[in-house]
Each structure stands twice: as C-alpha cells, then as structure tokens.
C-alpha cells in the first residue's frame, strides 16, 4: 500500500513540472535564508578567533591602578605568559565639532601578549599615533593625516602612522571611547601625573577554560572597584555584538521571507489540490481512505521539501561568508564557511513543516468532502454582496477589470495571501529606503547607528525577496490563467479582444498590487522602527522622505503588471475553441 | 376473433372502454373523444359512430334502449356482460414491446440483395422521410392546438422516430463495414 501511495505521489510531481519547480525554488529560498542566518552566526566567531591568535591575545586582560599591582599578577597560578604592563590614560581628541574622550595606551615596544595588529601603516606608534581601525574609519583619518590630542600636560599634534586592531576592542562608536596607541614618551608628556594612569596586564594561561577563575582571583585580590579583568570570552562577545544589527536584520528578513514563502507555497499547494479534485474523487472511488489520499499529497510535498532543503543548504552556506565578511571589520581576514550539517536539519525542519502542513490542511479539506461536493466546489460563485463587491459594481470599471476582479474575488483566500506577500515585499523595500535615509541624513563626521555594511546586506536581501515575490506572481498568474481557461474562451467568444482578455487577467493583479503597495508603507515603517528600537537606537528614527515612500506603491504596481503580463499574453494566444469544449 | 379484438387498435375498443363507466349516447361519446384527442383525430361523423355502435350491438357486446320521450330515436348504450369481460381483458393485456416487423427493413434487405437500389441511397431517402416526420410531429407539439393526451402521444412518436433514425445510422454503419 505504502509503495502505491509513494508511486502516486511521484506521478503527481512529474505531471506538474512547473508548479513543482516553483515550489522547490521557493522552499529552497526559505531554507537558504535560514542556513544563511545560522552560518553567519557561526562564521562570525571564526575571524575573531584568528584575530585573537594573530595578536597573541590575552586570555585574561586586567586593568589595574599601579604598575606594581600589574607586575604582581604575572605570578598568578596557571599564568604561562604575560606582557610588560602597558600604561593608558584618557585624553581629549579634538574633532571638527569639539572634543571626544579617547583612551590612549603608551607603548615602548610591541607587547609580548595582545599586541595591536596593523591593518594599515605600522602598529608601532613611535612619535606618532596608531588608531584603532573602526575609529579611524569613523573619523575619516588615514595614514599620514594629523590629529590633535589635549591632556593636562599640554597639546600635541600627532601624525597617524597606522591603523590597527586588537581582539579586545569593540567597534567604535558602539565601543566608546575609542582607542589609540602612542609612544610612552608622548603619553608621559600629555598626562604627566602617572598616578592617574591605569595599567593593562595581558595574561595567557595554560588552560583557556580556567580564564574565568584567573580573572576572579585578579579582582578578588584588590580593593573593590579598583581592578577589572576581562576574559577572552568577554572579548569575543563584545566583538560579536557588532554582528547584532546584521543578525537582527537577517532574522527580520528571514521572518518576512518565510511568511512570503509560506503564503506562496500555500497558494500553490492549495491550487494544486483544487486542481486535483477529480483525481481525489477517483482515488476515493477506487477505495483509498481520505487519510490515504491526504498522505499521497503529503508524501509528494515532503519529497519536494527535502529537495528544496538540500538546495537551500548549498546556496545558504555558499553565500554566508560573503555576508559575514561585512561584519568582520574589527577582525582579521574574511570568514570562511562553517557548513555545519546541523544547520541542514534546523533549516529543513520549518521548510518541511510549512510544506507538509499546508498540503495537509488543503488536502484534508478536499478529501473530507463528499465526492459530489468535491466536484462542484471547484466552481467559483459570483461574489456575494460585500462592501468590496458593491464598490466593484458601482465603479464604472471597464469590462475587463470587472470580469477580472470578479474572478479574483471568487478566490478570496488566495487574494488575501497574495496581498500579504506583496505587502511584505513592499515593506522590505520601505525598510531599505528608511535605512538609506538614516545613512544619508547623518551630518558629516557624525557616527551613525547603522553599520555601513548593512545597506549592502539589506539590498541583497531585498533583491532576493523581490525575485521570490515576482516569481510567485508569475506562478499565481499562470495558475489563474489555467483555472480560467474556459472562462477566457467564453470571453473571447462573446467578443473580448485579445487586449481586453489580457487586461482582464492583469488588471486585478494591478489593483491588488496598488492596495498592497499602500499597505506596505506603514508596515515597512513599523518594521523599521521596531528593528531600530530593538537594536538600541535612540529617539525617532530618520524616515524616508514621502516622495520616496509614494514611489513604493507605484513601483509595486508597475512590477506586478510587468510580471503578470507574461502569463496573460500566453492566455490570449491559447485557442478559445479547445477551451470551450472542456467539461 | 377475440385476439383480433385485442390487438387491433380500433374505435370499437375506444367506444367500449368509454361505455364501461356507465351508459351514454353516441353524441356523448363523440364529445369525449374529441376532447381527449383534439384535432389529431379526423372529425368523426355521426353516421360512423352509430354504425360502429350498431355493429357492437349486433356482436352482443353492447346493448341499447331508446331514450324515453325522445321522438328523434336517440338511444342509450351500455356494455353487456360479454362486452365488459372483453374490454377488461383488453385493458389488462400489455401492448407488445418489440417491433420485429419493419417495412423499411424488409424493403431494404430485398431491394439491396437483388440490386434494385443503392443501399446508401435507400437509407438516405428513408432518413429524409423520418426527419420530415419528426418535423411534422414537432410542429404539432409547438402549435399549441392540442390537449395533454395528444401531446404525450406525439412525444412518444417523436421518441420512436429518433430511435428509427439511430437505427438507420446503425444499419449504415454495419453495411458499410460489411462492404468494406
């Protein structure tokens, strides 16, 4: 029996190649996105590890008030290696608009542990200054530029000799104040009162797992509030916080994408089951129970889901390094693919669930009907008196639009789903526009809350979403052409010109796109505001200008009309004569 | 003689059946018949009616007596016991279903076997006739000058004609196959 059911299921897949391909592509896109999110998280930690190795990073980094206290830590249990204590002081950096506090370390040579890694120029400040890379970016300073530092001991104009990174410094301006290295002499000149200096002691231990215990003993041995210690784990978490907005955006898009895909797959599967009314009746007549009929459909879509997940996994893990590279500014090199097989399972779960659940729901509804009901249920009815229909009747709509909108209203569930899908896609566009505005609005030199790499990521995801939405539209349009073949034949016989027939197919999609486009504006703004708030933005977020926002519905309608006119053209070419004789 | 009465449809049975409800005179019988069948039946004249009734009386199936106080010689008729028995048997016996006698078929077989006519042409001409008959009958139905009884009768004839036409198709098909 099971073999028979499986055979029936695969026969179904073969006979509907287009719908099958689309379902796989869409579900695959969903799987790819999930894998992408997971992989980005995984690859993000990898470059930090390399930065840590390159810097010969400190398992425990202590910050103490005196050189002696720092020296004393070098003898702690488990410490295998340590650097000479590095003094640091907070000075004022003169910027165009005023002053910014800046943590400045005084180096007499490269420290044995946790030494800065040059990303441009030299990591050895000598008489100049080495800036932490993200700080240099925000200040717009390059090797060779000059900056002015103020301290109690006077003012110094220093040449930037290099930019560098260390594993313990987070990205400016999120990590504020910024960090820089100068020669020990420069530090002494600007802050001669060595009593105000703090000392960094970088320690390496034999077992990194015990770093926490070592850090505890560092803090415990001193008067409260005078000493702090950071383990390598805390350094890594700080670095990965940089990925938080990216992850947030990715997660949001994953959500949006999953909803869109769910909706479209729901439409496709529902339509497919609807189309199978006769087959369902036949299977039941042959003696299959409703449960067995449902399982034929479920097996079929589960098969598609497995293929889609595999496809999505390959694509997702291949693209992850590209996306993760954007967040690796404070780290060495680009990330590599993690390709964790666990991600395959995590991505496959929801995708299979969505496919199987929507198939199950649609098939169950169908199989539970009596055979007689099933036969007549495919027939749409004239829309009943709702406000929407009243409107359609009142408006002096052209015949094409009238006919098209009616056919559309006859499948209200699908209408709603499609509106949701287009609205969400439009909302993603609004999100991208708002973010771009926030970047553009920032006064020159003012640091932005939006990481610079975010736009590239968001635009890429928007493109994916758009592609999915348009593909689905073409699919749904093809579907309605197929379902309405006979009706279109009648319209031709009654005297609608090919142009009118095409218009009757395209125009309702256009109207729907208009509605969805308008809905998408507030939806997108809400999404943006939510992400802005969650990622710790303050005040009112900058919003895209209204002229841009007005463009969203217009562009939505234009794209939808273009996408659906392809299937519409196919429909006008199909011979009316054949369609009319169908029963 | 009984079987002749049973299986040939004639006005005798119709009159006897109408009289089985009680007695009546000739004029009443004429009116009832015309009410039921309308113009489908040719106009009956009184002479025909009375000669049929007197023949029935001669055969002992009907008896009559003069209407009192009528100087025109009007008579009232009723069934005799024999007549009633006969008409009851006539009513009970179903009309045979299969018609294995068909004039066209006999003509067709004979004429084609001796080469008197082209079979296809013969069939087509017969089809002409059937279609024309169908047209005549349908015109009758839509002409509205008829009662429900006559309509049923004509509808029956239409169905028979449609069957005859289908049968012609079948003959044509079989003949064509045989000659091929």
């Amino acid at each position: 029996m099971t073999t028979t059911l499986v055979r029936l299921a695969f026969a179904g897949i073969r006979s509907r190649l287009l719908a099958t391909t689309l379902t796989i592509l869409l579900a695959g896109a969903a799987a790819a996105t999930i894998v992408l999110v997971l992989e980005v998280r995984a690859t993000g930690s990898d470059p930090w590890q390399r930065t840590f190795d390159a810097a010969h990073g400190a398992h425990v980094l202590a910050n103490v008030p005196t050189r002696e206290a720092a020296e004393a830590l070098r003898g702690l249990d488990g410490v295998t290696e340590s650097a000479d204590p590095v003094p640091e002081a907070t000075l004022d950096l003169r910027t165009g608009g005023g002053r910014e506090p800046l943590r400045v370390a005084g180096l007499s040579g490269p420290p044995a542990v946790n030494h800065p890694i040059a990303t441009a120029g030299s990591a050895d400040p000598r008489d100049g200054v080495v800036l932490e890379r993200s700080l240099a970016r925000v200040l717009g300073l390059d090797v060779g530029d000059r900056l002015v530092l103020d301290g109690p001991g006077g003012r110094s104009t220093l040449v930037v000799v290099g930019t560098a990174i260390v594993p313990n410094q987070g990205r400016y301006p999120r990590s504020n104040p910024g960090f820089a290295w100068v020669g020990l002499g420069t530090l002494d000149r600007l802050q001669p009162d060595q009593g105000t200096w703090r000392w960094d002691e970088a320690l390496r231990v034999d077992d990194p797992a015990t770093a926490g215990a070592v850090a505890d003993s560092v803090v415990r041995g001193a008067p409260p509030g005078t000493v702090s210690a950071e383990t390598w784990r805390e350094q890594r978490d700080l670095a990965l916080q940089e990925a938080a907005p990216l992850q947030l955006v990715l997660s949001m898009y994953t959500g949006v994408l999953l909803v869109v895909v769910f909706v479209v797959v729901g439409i496709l599967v529902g339509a497919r089951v609807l189309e199978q009314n006769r087959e369902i009746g036949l299977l039941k007549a042959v003696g299959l129970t409703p449960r067995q009929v449902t399982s034929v459909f479920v097996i079929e879509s589960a098969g598609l889901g497995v293929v889609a997940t595999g496809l999505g996994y390959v694509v997702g893990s291949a693209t992850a390094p590209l996306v993760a590279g954007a967040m690796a500014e404070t780290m060495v090199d680009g990330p590599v693919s993690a390709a964790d097989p666990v991600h395959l399972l995590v991505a496959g779960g929801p995708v299979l669930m969505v496919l199987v659940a929507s198939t199950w729901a649609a098939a169950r509804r169908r199989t539970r009907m009596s055979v007689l009901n099933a036969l007549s249920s495919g027939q749409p009815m004239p829309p009943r008196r709702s406000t929407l229909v009243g409107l359609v009747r009142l408006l002096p709509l052209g015949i094409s639009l009238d006919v098209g909108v009616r056919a559309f209203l006859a499948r209200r569930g699908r209408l709603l789903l499609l509106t949701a899908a287009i609205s969400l896609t439009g909302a993603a566009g609004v999100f991208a526009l708002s973010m771009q505005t926030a970047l553009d609005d920032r006064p020159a030199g003012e640091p932005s809350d939006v990481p610079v790499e975010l736009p590239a990521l968001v635009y890429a995801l928007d493109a994916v979403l758009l592609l999915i939405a348009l593909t689905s539209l073409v699919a749904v349009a093809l579907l309605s052409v197929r379902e309405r073949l006979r009706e279109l034949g009648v319209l031709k016989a009654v005297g609608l010109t090919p142009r009118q027939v095409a218009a009757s197919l395209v125009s309702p999609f256009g109207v729907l796109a208009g509605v969805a486009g308008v809905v998408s504006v507030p939806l997108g703004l809400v999404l943006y505001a939510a992400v802005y708030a969650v990622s710790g933005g303050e005040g009112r977020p900058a919003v895209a200008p209204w002229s841009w926002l007005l463009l969203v519905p217009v562009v939505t309608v234009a794209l939808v009309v273009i996408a659906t006119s392809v299937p519409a053209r196919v429909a006008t070419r199909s011979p009316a004569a054949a369609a009319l004789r169908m029963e | 003689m009984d079987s002749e009465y049973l299986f040939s449809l004639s006005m005798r049975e119709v009159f006897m059946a109408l009289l089985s409800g009680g007695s009546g005179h000739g004029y009443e019988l004429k009116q009832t018949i015309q009410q039921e069948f309308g113009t489908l039946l040719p106009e009956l004249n009184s002479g025909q009616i009375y000669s049929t009734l007197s023949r029935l009386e001669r055969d002992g199936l009907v008896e009559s007596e003069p209407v009192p106080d009528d100087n025109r010689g009007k008579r009232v008729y009723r069934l005799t016991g024999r007549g009633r028995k006969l008409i009851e048997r006539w009513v009970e016996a179903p009309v045979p279903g299969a018609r294995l006698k068909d004039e066209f078929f006999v003509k067709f077989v004979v004429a084609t076997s001796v080469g008197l006519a082209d079979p296809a042409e013969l069939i087509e001409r017969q089809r002409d006739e059937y279609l024309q008959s169908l047209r005549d009958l349908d015109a009758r139905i839509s002409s509205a000058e008829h009662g429900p009884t006559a309509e049923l009768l004509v509808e029956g004839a239409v169905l028979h004609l449609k069957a005859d036409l289908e049968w012609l198709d079948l003959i044509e098909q079989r003949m064509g196959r045989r000659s091929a």
Partner: protein
Amino acid sequence: MTALLEARGLSRTYGEGEAAVAALHDVDLTIERGEFVAVMGPSGCGKSTLLNLLAGLDRPSAGEVWLDGARVDRLSETALARLRRRRLGFVFQFFNLLPTMTAAENVELPLLLAGRRRRAARRTARRVLADLGIADKADAAPRELSGGQQQRVALARALANQPDLVLGDEPTGSLDSAAAGEVLGLLRAAHARGQTLLLATHDARVAAAADRVVTMRDGEVTRERTLAPSRPVTLPFDPDPA
C-alpha cells in the same frame, strides 16, 4: 442578395507532417439570412470544427469565410472579436456561463461590449430573460440553476444583441429530453422571429426543426437536405373497422 455566411473550400488540419489529421476537408456551405441550418453527423465528423472556423474562433488551414459579402478569415484577432460581439451569438453544449456573474450579468456582458450603457444593458437583459421565461432567475448564480435554465440564460446572452447569426454547438447535448424540448422550442421561436440559426447537433429533433440539414462525415459534407414545411399529422385510428 449576398448570402449571410459563406464558406468556400474550408479545410482545417491539426498537427503537421505524418501526424497531420484533417478535421475538415474542402467544405462549402452557404447560409441565407433568416435560415435555420442544422449540421448533423457522428462525433468527430468535424461539425464543431466547422462552427469554430465560421465563428472565427479558429483559423482555417485553407479556404475562405465570407460574412455578409466581406471576407473574415484573414482578419486580426481584435477585428474578429469586434465582429463577434456585434454580429454573432453563441450557445454551447456546456452552457459556458461565466461562473462569477449572475444570470442577468451574463446577458448584459455582450450588450456592454457592444457599447450599450449599463442601465440600458440591464433593462435589455431583463427583457430578454423574461422573453425566455426565466425572469425570476435573473439574480441567480449559474451554479444555482438547472442545466435547462443555464442554457436559457446562455441563449439569452446569445440573442441579447440581436446578432446576425446565432451559432450553437450541441445546444441540447447535455440536457434531459424535457429541458432539450424547451430549449428547442425557444430556438424555434427565435427563428420564427427571423433569427438566423446554425446549429451543430446530433439530436435528430433539433435537426428536424431546421429548414436545411447538412450531414457531415469524416470532415466532409455528405448530404444536404431541405426539409419541407410540416405536414398535418393524424392519429392512426381506424374509425370504422369492418
């Protein structure tokens, strides 16, 4: 006077090369204004193909179609559509009412297409439906109607514009005999009012109602017979057996 519709050497072949199937071969047919012509023949004889070609729903492989003295088989799809909406009406075996419209709206559709105002179209549709005896079903959905009722609505839709020609493809083909009789009666009545009709049918009763019956076989016309006006019918009673 020119014929209303004329087909000259009409042929239609499906497929190409070895697999080519001739659905229609060299058919000539003339229909005069006011005529009622029936095309008979077994299924697959090409009668539907002929109708589709005459209506411009399909293109002939060879031959010509003339409507009212103008050649129409070479017209563009758009021009054909415009021609259909004013001059032709259709009745199909499976009614083919638009399921998303009520009966009245189905009838209004060709009127609106012909450029009538909405209100005028509504009035005309109601009147035509009343003529066909289904005024009370005007606001019903097609699927709420019986087959016979649906075919009446379809007929109303075909007649609404008072087209030059009404084409029917098995108009009684999916009706029981009572409904078929009613629809035939309505067709006959339309013809009596001067409507030209061309019906493909295998219902002998429909064919017998026509003035002329064209019989087709294997894509060719095998016989054309003109029926005489109906003769009087009498019942076979023997009023006076010996």
